[in-house]
C-alpha cells in the first residue's frame, strides 16, 4: 500500500482561552500560576451534612459576557458558559469568519462529569414529582449540550464531537482535532475541556481522596494548519493513551507515557498534573523524577478541575511559550481512572 509523501504535517496553536477559579480569561490564570499559591477554597453546602465541602469555583464574571444574552445560552448551566467563554477567547477574530461561513470550524468538547448541575436538579425533580420535572432542564443534562450551544452561537455546522473520559481525554481531543485538520475536513478546530462544580461530584470524589479539592471552569485551544501568531507554537507530539485500571498499572502507564515524550532539557517546561496529594501524585512524580527543567503544577493551585484542568495545563504550557519563557513545554496527564497521556509543544 502506498503512502502520501507531502509537506510536513504541522499543527499550530492559534489561540487559547480559559475560565478557572482564578477568573475569566488566560490573564488571571497566568497571574495565579505565576504567584504559585493555591487559591483559597470556598465552602459548598452538602445536604444532610453540617460540615460543608471545600471547592475552588469560578468567580462570577464581571462584566457579564455579552454571549450570555444569546437565546440559546440564557438557561444554560455554568459548564456551557465556561466552555463558550474559553472557546471565544481562543477563537478571537476567527469567530466572525466562522459566523460568515468562510471558515469551517470543528469542535471537540471533552468532559468527565459533564452537565451535573442540571442532571442532579432534574433527577431530584423527577423523584419529587415527574409531572413537574422541567422540560427546559432535561435537554441541558445531555453531555453534548455545551458543544451544541457553542455551535449554535457560532453557526458552526461542521464536525462536532463530545468526548467522555478521565482528564487525559483532553489530549485525545487534541489528537482528534489534528486529524480533522490534516485530513482537510475543517479549517480550524476548537478543543475545549469543561466541568462544573456540584456538591454531588465533590461528595463523590471525597470518597477517594479526603483532601482533594474539586474545581471547575474550562480551557480551550484553537488549532490551525498555519500559524497566525508570533511566536508560533506548534504541537510537536501527543503520546499514546496508556490505559490502566489499578495503581500498579497507573505507575506503568505514567512511565510509558513519559518514555514517549522528548527527554527535555533545563530550559524546557513541564506542566504536570500534580495536586500536592501524595496518594494521587505518586505515580506521576515517579515518572517525572528526573525531569531537568522547570515545572508548573496548575492543579495544585487551581484544584482538580478534571477535563478542565487538563485543558488549563495545556493553556498554561502554551502561554509560557508564547511569553517566550521557554522554547518547549511538555504536558503530563496521569488521569484518575483511565489513561496516562502526554503532549509536547514547541516554539516554531
Amino acid at each position, binding site marked *: 500500500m502506498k*503512502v502520501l509523501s507531502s509537506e510536513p504535517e504541522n499543527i499550530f496553536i492559534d489561540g487559547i482561552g480559559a475560565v478557572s477559579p482564578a477568573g475569566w480569561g488566560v490573564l488571571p490564570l497566568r497571574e495565579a500560576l505565576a504567584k504559585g499559591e493555591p487559591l483559597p477554597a470556598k465552602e459548598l453546602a452538602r445536604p444532610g451534612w453540617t460540615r460543608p465541602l471545600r471547592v475552588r469555583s469560578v468567580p462570577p464574571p464581571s462584566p457579564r459576557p455579552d454571549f450570555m444574552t444569546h437565546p440559546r445560552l440564557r438557561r444554560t448551566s455554568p459548564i456551557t458558559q465556561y466552555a463558550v467563554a474559553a472557546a471565544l477567547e481562543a477563537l478571537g477574530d476567527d469567530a466572525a469568519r466562522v459566523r460568515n461561513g468562510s471558515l469551517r470550524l470543528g469542535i471537540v468538547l471533552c468532559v468527565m462529569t459533564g452537565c451535573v448541575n442540571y442532571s442532579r436538579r*432534574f433527577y431530584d425533580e423527577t423523584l419529587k414529582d415527574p409531572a413537574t*420535572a422541567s422540560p427546559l432542564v432535561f435537554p441541558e443534562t445531555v453531555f453534548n449540550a455545551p458543544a451544541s450551544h457553542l455551535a449554535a452561537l457560532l453557526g458552526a455546522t461542521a464536525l462536532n464531537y463530545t468526548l467522555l473520559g478521565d482528564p487525559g481525554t483532553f489530549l485525545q481531543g487534541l489528537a482528534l482535532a489534528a486529524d480533522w485538520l490534516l485530513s482537510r475536513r475543517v479549517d480550524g478546530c476548537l478543543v475545549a475541556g469543561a466541568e462544573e462544580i456540584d456538591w454531588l461530584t465533590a461528595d463523590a470524589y471525597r470518597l477517594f481522596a479526603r483532601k482533594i479539592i474539586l474545581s471547575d471552569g474550562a480551557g480551550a485551544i484553537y488549532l490551525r494548519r498555519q500559524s497566525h501568531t508570533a511566536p508560533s507554537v506548534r504541537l510537536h507530539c501527543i*503520546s499514546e493513551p496508556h490505559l490502566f485500571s489499578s495503581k500498579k498499572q497507573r505507575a506503568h502507564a505514567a512511565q510509558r507515557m513519559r518514555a514517549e515524550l522528548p527527554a527535555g532539557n533545563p530550559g524546557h517546561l513541564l506542566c504536570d498534573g500534580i495536586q500536592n496529594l501524595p496518594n494521587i501524585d505518586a505515580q506521576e512524580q515517579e515518572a517525572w523524577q528526573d525531569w531537568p527543567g522547570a515545572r508548573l503544577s496548575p492543579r495544585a493551585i487551581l484544584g482538580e478541575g478534571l477535563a478542565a484542568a487538563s485543558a488549563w495545563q495545556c493553556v498554561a504550557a502554551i502561554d509560557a511559550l508564547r511569553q517566550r519563557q521557554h522554547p518547549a513545554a511538555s504536558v503530563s496527564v496521569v488521569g484518575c481512572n483511565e489513561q496516562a497521556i502526554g503532549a509536547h509543544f514547541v516554539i516554531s
Partner: protein
Amino acid sequence: MLFPRKQPPVPPPRVVVTGAGIVTPLGVGWKANADGFRAGRVAIRPVTLFDVSRQRVKASGEVELPPALPDTHLPARQVRRLDRAAKLLLLAAREAWQQSGWKPSTDLPLVLGTTSGGMSLGQDYYRQAIHTPGSHRRQPTRVLHYQAQRQAIDLSDAFGFGGPIILIANACASGANAIGHAWELIRNGRAQRAMTGGYDALSQLVFAGFDSLQALSPTRCRPFDTRRDGLAIGEGAAVLTLETLEHSQRRGAIILGEIVGYGTATDAHHLTQPHPQGDAAFATMTAACQSAGVSPRQIGYLNAHGTGTPLNDSAEAAAINRWAGEHAAKIPVSSTKSGIGHLLGAAGAVEVVICLMALGEQWLPPTSTLETPDPLCAFPLVQKPAKAQLEYALTNSFGFGGANASLVLRRWE
C-alpha cells in the same frame, strides 16, 4: 504516538465487518433480532425497571437480560459490579468477539457511543446521598462504575485486549458517530482493526426527561404515520468488529458486510428540534454517499432515524426527499424504532447491524406500526416484511444538540 500521525494509506483500505453482536428488546443475539426485525415484531411493553406510576407514559422497550452473563476474563467480583448498561454492552461484545475469531492484543482501539453510561448507578448514588447522607456503603463502587470509561475498561478486560478508548457522547447519534470514527481510524491507517458500537440502558432520569418533553408516545410509536405522536424509549447495545479487508482475508475471516461511507454534521437550529427542512440530515446523507462514492439511486434501503415524533419525521422526510430527488420514489425506507423504541446511544449501532442483516439476508425490515403514511414522504415506506435485492443501505442517526450522522453499508457476497 497519537500525533504526529502516520501518513494515511492511499487508497484508503476497505473496511469490513467480521463480527456483530446485538441486544435489543427483541432479544439477545443476531438470530433473535434478525427474526424479529424481519417479521416486524413489536417489543414495547410496560416498564418494570423503575416506578412509572406518576409518568404520563408507562411503556418502553426493555431488554430481558439472561440470568447469567457469559464467561469472560472478568473475575466474578467484577461481574457482580456491572450495571445494566455494562451487561448489555458485554453481551453484544461477546457475540461480536466470538463471531470475529479475534485474539486478545494490546493495540485494539475501542470506540463506543453512549448517552448516559451507567446512569442507573448515578441515580442509586444520589438517592443514598440524599436519604442516608452519613452512609457510604457501596457508594465508591457506584461512582466508579457509573463512568463510561469504566464500562469500556471492563469490556477490554473481559476479552483481554488493550488499546486507546474513545467514548463519543453525541446524544442519539453517539453509536453511529462511534462506528464512523472507528471506520475512519482504520481508513486513515491508525489501526488495522477496531471494536466499536453503542449502548445505553433504560434509566428513570432519561425516561422522565423524554416524558417531560412530551416526546414519548402515549399511544403507539408510529414513525412516519400521519397520526404519529411520539417515540418509545428502549435500551440495548450493538458492537461490531471492524478490520481492513486485507487483514480479514489474510486470516480467512467470515465477512458480514462492508462499511463504505460516513458523514456527520451539526444542526445548529435548536437544542432538541431539527431544522424543519432537515438541513444537517441532508448534509450527512450527502457526505456519507460522497465518501462511499455512491449516488442515492444506488441505495436500496434506508433505515431512517424515524423516531415517531412529529418534528423529527417531517424534517427527516424533507431531507430524504431533497437528498434522493427523483429517485426518492424508488428507495424503500423504514424505521425499526417502531419495534424496539429509540435506543439512544445504542440506536445508531443497532441500526447498522439491522442493515447488515438486511443486506446479508436480502430483506427489508418493516415499520410495522405504520397505519397511514405521512404524505410528506415521497419515498415508499416499508410496512410489511418483504424480500429485496440490496447492494447498499444507508442508516441515519440524529440526536439532541444537532448531532447528525449517516453511514453507508455494502453487501458482502
